[in-house]
């Protein structure tokens, strides 16, 4: 047997005590039209929902071209979880170490002592920061003298006249038993908080990843598109816009590709350059006046980025013109070309079904899932639909459909699977199914086979 496009392996879905689908196997070959039939409540739509990631299967595997639809665990994920953990840990540690006090020690103290003097000394601030981070005593300069103070700033451990002397005294003070014990205690608390944050953040990252391993969006981007039994169009959008939504992921467009890649780093880089420049000049109007062009450039960078996010559509820019052409081609393919600008909810029922198909096709799927596409259609529309489905198959998209309408199923399917009470009772070509006694007794006996 050749490689299957879609493999559903022992799929089981339980809701509470109810087994909606039990141990169902499906193999859909590339380029075929595969139908799933069965009485109402047999679990057909549930299978669809499990395939498209709306439901998480109780057990069983679903593979597209041999690869599981669940995102595999990669080494990068561990890096992400660690990063999340580190961030959460660092954040918590900042609060555990009392960020307010830290600020006071590193920034406020150093600004205050220099009022009217030489200005803020970044080196001194850095030394205070290091001392604070190591939970050691630090040096504060007040009225020209150097005070060695404890971690919380409450006790003075010594006084010095010169910075060198202060550094020596500080080192001695740090080795004294009491401050040492205090430092050790503070460091222990911080370490515990860091580890706690690390664990929480990493676990949170893992939990989020597990909940999003398979989402409808990730399944769709793997190349599976679907329609819905109860038509779900974007009702307030025009016919064209509906298709454009489908196209949005599939066709990034040539122009935006480059901008996509370049704009965020450009904006970020521009912002950082600007900030550094602003930091260096301070609030001095003279220097800053010279910097105005840089600032304008940075602002333009941001603006360009935002514009790129919402780049002009309707008329003008290339990529949307291309998307529009593709959308019109698709609408033409399903026979809705004359109704491009109508509001989708004003369409006739059959047209709405075809618009749903066009929207699904717009995502350029390899596998198209159709949930009762012929429901509510009149005989003429049904015939047109059968032709459309064949055309879709002939254009290279494999079709998996649920249908009650036996003329459609028998007329276009290459193979058929029959579900009853959530279990597969038969599979085969239309001829085989037609003659299968199990199927006839379960289901088909009640209905004219056409």
């Amino acid at each position, binding site marked *: 047997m050749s490689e299957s496009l879609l493999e559903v392996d022992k799929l089981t879905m339980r809701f509470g005590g109810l087994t909606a689908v039990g141990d169902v196997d499906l193999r859909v070959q590339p380029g075929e039209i595969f139908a799933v039939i069965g009485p109402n409540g047999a679990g057909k739509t549930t299978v669809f929902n499990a395939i498209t990631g709306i439901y998480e299967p109780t057990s069983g595997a679903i593979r597209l071209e041999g690869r599981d639809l669940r995102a595999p665990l990669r080494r990068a994920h561990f890096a992400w979880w660690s990063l999340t953990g580190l961030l959460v840990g660092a954040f918590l540690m900042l609060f555990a170490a009392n960020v307010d006090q830290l600020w006071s020690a590193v920034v406020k103290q150093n600004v205050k002592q220099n009022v009217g003097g030489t200005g803020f000394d970044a080196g001194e601030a850095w030394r205070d920061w290091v001392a604070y981070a190591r939970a050691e005593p630090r040096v504060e300069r007040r009225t020209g003298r150097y005070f060695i103070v404890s971690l919380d700033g409450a006790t003075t451990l010594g006084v010095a006249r010169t910075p060198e002397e202060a550094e020596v005294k500080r080192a001695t003070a740090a080795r004294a038993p009491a401050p040492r014990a205090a430092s050790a205690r503070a460091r222990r608390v911080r370490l515990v908080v860091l580890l706690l944050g690390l664990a929480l953040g990493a676990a949170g990252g893992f939990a989020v990843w597990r909940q999003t391993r398979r*989402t409808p969006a990730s399944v769709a981007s793997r190349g599976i598109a679907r329609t819905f039994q109860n038509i779900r169009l974007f009702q307030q959008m025009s016919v064209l816009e509906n298709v454009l939504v489908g196209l949005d992921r599939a066709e990034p467009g040539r122009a935006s590709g480059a901008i996509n890649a370049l704009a965020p780093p450009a904006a970020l880089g521009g912002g950082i350059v600007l900030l550094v420049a602003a930091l260096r000049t301070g609030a001095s109007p003279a220097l800053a006046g010279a910097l105005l062009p840089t600032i304008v450039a940075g602002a333009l960078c941001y603006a360009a980025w935002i*514009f790129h996010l919402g780049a*002009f559509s309707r008329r003008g820019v290339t990529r949307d013109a291309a998307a529009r052409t593709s959308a019109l081609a698709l609408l033409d393919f399903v026979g809705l070309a004359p109704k491009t600008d109508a509001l989708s909810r004003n369409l006739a029922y059959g047209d709405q079904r075809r618009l749903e198909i066009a929207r699904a096709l717009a995502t350029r799927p390899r596998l198209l899932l159709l949930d009762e596409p012929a429901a509510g259609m009149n005989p003429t529309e049904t015939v047109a639909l059968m032709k459309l489905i064949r055309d879709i198959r002939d254009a290279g998209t494999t079709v998996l459909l649920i249908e009650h309408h036996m003329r459609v199923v028998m007329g276009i399917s290459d193979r058929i699977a029959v579900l009853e009470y959530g279990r597969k009772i038969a599979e085969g070509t239309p001829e085989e199914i037609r003659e299968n006694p199990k199927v006839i007794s379960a289901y088909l006996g009640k209905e004219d086979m056409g």
Partner: protein
Amino acid sequence: MRRGFGLGIAALAVLLLYPIFPVLDIGVEAAVGVPPRLDRQLVSIFIFAILALALNLQVGYAGLLQLGIAAFFAIGAFTTGVLTVEKYPFQIGFWGAILAAPLCAGLAGLALGAPTIRLRGDYLAIVTLGFGEVVRVVLLNLENITDGPRGLNPIPAPWLPAWLPGADAVDVTGRRQFLTMYYVALGLLALLVVVFHTLERSRLGRSLVALREDELVSACMGLSPSRTKLVAFAGGAAIAGLAGALYATNLTTTAEPNTYDFNTSIMVLCCLIIGGLGSLRGALLGALVLVGFDNVVSPLVTRLIQRGSDGSGGVLLTFSNWRWIIFGTALVLMMRFRPEGLWPSSRLKRELHQHE
């Protein structure tokens, strides 16, 4: 579309000229005897309009019920405070701050959004509400950094490059400083209006509408709802941060953290609802109506009411004490009789009336 464009240009022209020809001021002064200084109120209106646009991106376009926009407003204001006041060593000035503030607020938005954006709507509402409280409490408690209830001040006014005419003259009346603020706020608002106008017709705008209309289906189209929501969330937060930077600079202080409480968030939401959720022009109108009511109409009415009394006032005689009854009733009546707002976008109007 054409008409809207013309209207926008006309409004912009009027606003550009207003500080030079304060027509209404002269009229009101003739009638009441006191000039209401409408041009000063207009700056507040611009700032709140920017804030309303930020919230509109989240609530109006993306349909995320965000009840804590004041938190990002506050983060923007306090970032500006820390980075510009004289007592801290950074002093990057106004122009640096209006870049840094949105960045910080946007990052905060990302940090809040990343773990919670997948939550169902009502859960997200409570999380954002809670975040608003947390930010306020943290700002109050970190007294060494934020000066607690006093707020950080004075925040320097925007400087102008030396080659601009009159930039180095002594600004005794504060007129130049005011005009700078006025035109900066107006310019940024106009820029944002253009950006959002473009956005509405763009790919991102479409995925936002798709998300609001039917999250599941938009996901089945391969548009990751979490990503779209996160963009709206962080973007809205960043713009709110920008509004915060302007607000603090305009006041020359960050004001106390309690300024940025739940009532402020709801007030911004009121702007949107009264103007029309999801409608660009509606958000602008809402800000005009609400801030105008608060800052212009309400003091005037109070003065008129108390003119006759002995001046002791009493809780019922101060008109601003009726503020929340008026806002609350307005919300209820709007929802009942005109849910699409005073000046809705055509798309939203359809959405809200589809059940009838």
